[in-house]
């Protein structure tokens, strides 16, 4: 080859390189991972364990959470390559330098009793504003995927009694026993977690199979395999994923033959977060997310009966008794006023028979009021089917369920004020069975062609 020919080839080669570089720049602009995070991940390399933590600038609880994670790595996983990924979003009035986990003093975490053989890595995804839970989870999943983590967990610094033992319990089923999703179980007061007990658990169990009691939790574990699967789903633009991605991840596991289990963690304390979102907003986020999952995964559950027991490590439930601070009278009044005010909307959502039964309940006195479980299940299935058929704005539709849930809550409080934990558990099982029994009703309603009312 002549010098000219060689030079020509070289020019072509450089041109190609530049074009490729422009392409990769364009691709880089699409990515949600910034270069700094990528650089940190590059330095970490492949890991066995990854724990993601979403801190919203709360320095004290973040420090406590990071310490718990590091202790768990140091004492329980002495040989494993481990990393903490903090999807950190500084509050506007707090500087990131003050409160990010990477700023937890070394002497605090390098314990004298440390048994760990390896460096425990810490990575911070520093967002300008606090990221949405969905973006935080997506960042953690991307880190897990890029680092080829075998077992992962997500924890919240809002849980103030996070212990090394909890972290180990969340990681071990995925690391040692090849489970893909590890849901937590907590000690609950019998009147705590009523939304989970009366709606999410029995309904998701009937629809998707596999009973995960805490579908919406602040901490859970998962495999690298599931992380990659979830990361690659084209869902990240969805509002429901942005606000409450945890149930979606659990449902993704349950409905796609990933192996799920539950681990009992014990009593959970949370930092005081003010009044928190009201019940309507909670419904919009959580029930909306559940219905959206049913919609987006209908091919996986509609014609498929699947009910597999989920293996549980530790007790499956632990309920405590004690006086309740709930204002039953106010709940009842809000049920009555809600049903009355929303009558036209409920009429377009509910089957006429269901609607009539609910209207009948409104006329009952408090002492005689009971919301039958059959009616509650039918109501939920009507709502789910109407969500599917989009009979009205889906946000409005989901919010209309809130007053009916108040009726169920009032009924539950009245019926079980003296019930033992075992009795409550038996009632819960019966409710699950009712959801299962009425599943054909849901399927029929789901499949029927509906003309959307104007």
């Amino acid at each position, binding site marked *: 080859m002549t010098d000219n020919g060689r030079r020509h080839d070289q020019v072509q080669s450089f041109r190609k390189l530049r074009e490729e570089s422009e392409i990769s720049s364009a691709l880089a602009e699409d990515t949600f991972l910034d270069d700094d995070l990528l650089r940190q991940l*590059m330095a970490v390399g492949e890991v066995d364990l990854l724990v993601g933590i979403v801190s919203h600038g709360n320095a004290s609880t973040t420090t406590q959470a990071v310490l718990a994670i590091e202790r768990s790595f140091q004492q329980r996983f002495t040989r494993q390559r481990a990393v903490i990924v903090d999807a950190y979003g500084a509050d506007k009035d707090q500087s990131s330098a003050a409160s990010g986990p990477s700023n937890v003093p070394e002497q605090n975490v390098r314990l004298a009793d440390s048994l760990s053989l390896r460096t425990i890595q810490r990575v911070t995804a520093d967002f300008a504003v606090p990221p949405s839970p969905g973006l935080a989870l997506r960042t953690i999943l991307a880190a897990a995927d890029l680092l080829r983590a075998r077992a992962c967990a997500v924890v919240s610094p809002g849980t103030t009694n996070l212990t090394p033992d909890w972290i180990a319990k969340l990681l071990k089923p995925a690391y040692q026993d090849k489970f893909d999703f590890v849901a937590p179980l907590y000690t609950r007061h019998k009147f705590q977690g009523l939304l989970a007990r009366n709606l999410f658990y029995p309904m998701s169990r009937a629809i998707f199979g596999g009973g995960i009691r805490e579908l919406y939790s602040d901490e859970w574990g998962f495999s690298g395999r599931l992380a990659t699967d979830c990361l690659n789903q084209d869902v990240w633009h969805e509002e429901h994923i942005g606000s409450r991605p945890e149930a979606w991840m659990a449902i993704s596991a349950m409905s796609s033959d990933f192996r799920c289990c539950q681990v009992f963690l014990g009593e959970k304390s949370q930092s005081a977060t003010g009044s928190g979102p009201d019940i309507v907003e909670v419904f919009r986020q959580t029930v909306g997310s559940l219905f959206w999952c049913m919609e987006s995964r209908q091919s996986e559950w509609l014609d498929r009966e699947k009910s597999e027991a989920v293996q549980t490590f530790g007790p499956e439930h632990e309920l405590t008794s004690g006086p309740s601070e709930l204002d039953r009278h106010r709940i009842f009044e809000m049920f009555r006023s809600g049903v009355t005010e929303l009558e036209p909307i409920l009429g377009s959502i509910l089957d006429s028979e269901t609607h009539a039964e609910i209207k009948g309940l409104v006329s009952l006195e408090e002492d005689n009021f009971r919301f039958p479980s059959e009616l509650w299940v039918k109501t939920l299935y009507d709502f789910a089917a109407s969500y599917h058929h989009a009979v009205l704005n889906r946000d409005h539709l989901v919010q209309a369920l809130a007053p009916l849930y108040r009726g169920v809550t009032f009924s539950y409080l009245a019926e079980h004020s003296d019930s033992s934990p075992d009795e409550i558990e038996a009632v819960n099982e019966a409710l699950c069975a009712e959801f299962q029994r009425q599943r054909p009703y849901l399927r029929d309603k789901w499949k029927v062609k509906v003309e959307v009312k104007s």
Partner: protein
Amino acid sequence: MARQKDNLWYKDAVIYQLHVRTFSDSNADGIGDFAGLTQRLDYLQDLGITAIWLLPFYPSPLRDDGYDIADYSSVHPSYGSLDDFKTFLTAAHNRGIRIIIEMVLNHTSDQHPWFKEARSSHDNPKRDWYVWSETDTRYEGVPIIFVDTETSNWAWDPTSKSYYWHRFFSHQPDLNFDNPAVIEALWEVMRFWLEMGVDGFRFDAVPYLVEREGTLCQNLPETHAIIRNLRKRLDEAFPGRMLLAEANNWPDDVRPYFGDGDEFHAAFHFPLMPRMFMSVKLEDRKPIIDVLEKTPEIPNTCQWCIFLRNHDELTLEMVTEVERDYMYDEYAVDKTMRINRGIRRRLAPMMDNDRRRIELLNGLLMSMPGTPIVYYGDEIGMGDNIYLGDRNGVRTPMQWNGERNAGFSNADPERLYSPVISNAVYGSQVINVDSQERTGHSLLRWMKSLIQLRNSFQVFGRGTLQFLKPSNHRVLAYVRQLGDETVLVVNNLSNSAQAVELDVRRFKGNIPIEMFGRNLFPRFGDLPYLLTLGPYQFYWFQLRRI
């Protein structure tokens, strides 16, 4: 080449450890000897080592590979004569190689005349040269070192009907250092060899010289007083000679053996050794940094001696239970490979004969603070034989060529003190000096260039150490500095390619020169300095401000 007149020579030395028995047999009796060793000195000079540490060559029943000495002032007949030793010593000195010999002063063989006299009668003048007791309950709680073979530190002597103290094997009674006559006798032994011209002593089992009730009988103040006494005499009568301590302890516990520069000149850094192996297996610099950051400063005239493997098991005394389990699982999965609290394997088999890992570990050995010790045969990647019992598997004949007995001896193979390694991977047909001399890229040739480089820069032996700690924990980077001499060492501890960004702002303006190829790299500036390293690759950069 004449020996340099620097009294701190041991700080710049590269020491080669060998046993006369294993190296070269000149008279075809199957056992290496001084005449054979002398013939091989050109090889050692060419290798670039500057000192030889000889394992015990004294008359001995050889029940502990010569550490059971029966006569301190002679040579075991199998290895030749005193004259042979003198010839060897002169030949080594003529090549600029210093000689360090063993001083096993904690105990003798039970066949030593001193002990024979001591046990002969309670009234014998030598009786008090050893530690006797009517019961075996004194010094309770003192750990047993050879847990695989001994059940007590006391042994019953049926001759004198009393117990004698032994920290090692029961055929090795401990000398009584509370008796000044013992110290005088041992000084006379030292003087004997020093006058002949030896350059240093490796003091065996130093921490255990003195016993006191209610203690662990180790590292006692009285032991330090004895060492200071011997050191003072040495400095006065034989300046420029050195004492090397074997104290298998944590650096903090070894530090007192340097005193104020008035006890030992050098001491082994035992805890670093397993952590180098651990770091490479874990692909994480943490173990190395942890132990070196916990290593105290020592007087300027003192030095740590560092090593990868030696004639004993790879000792796991100075590690945690978790670390020991890890080392066993990763390096001694076959239980035959384990002995006492350690691993009886050589470097190359432990590295799965992976040339890159062998080079990396040797690179660490030569660039870390301290005087490196190379165990014979490791420079060519010799294998081991874990089925030979005790630690004999790492003490097989040196493999000189692919001929009969690996060129070690002309005796019939059956007569050799130990079988030559003969398997398909490490056998002498494959691994030997001759073939590696003739191969340009052999491990031996590479080791020569490594040692030559080390010898060319005093910074390695005397410089300070500072870790850079880049965010990539699989990369171990440190700066060695001595006056104007600055070297940056960057090691990839992992089995995969790595990128690393180094904060070298304080060296802004310096040009890094890769020391093996003398190639210039881009000048350091304000930005993080990006390097990429292949699996187990390492760089040594000389920093030049031009």
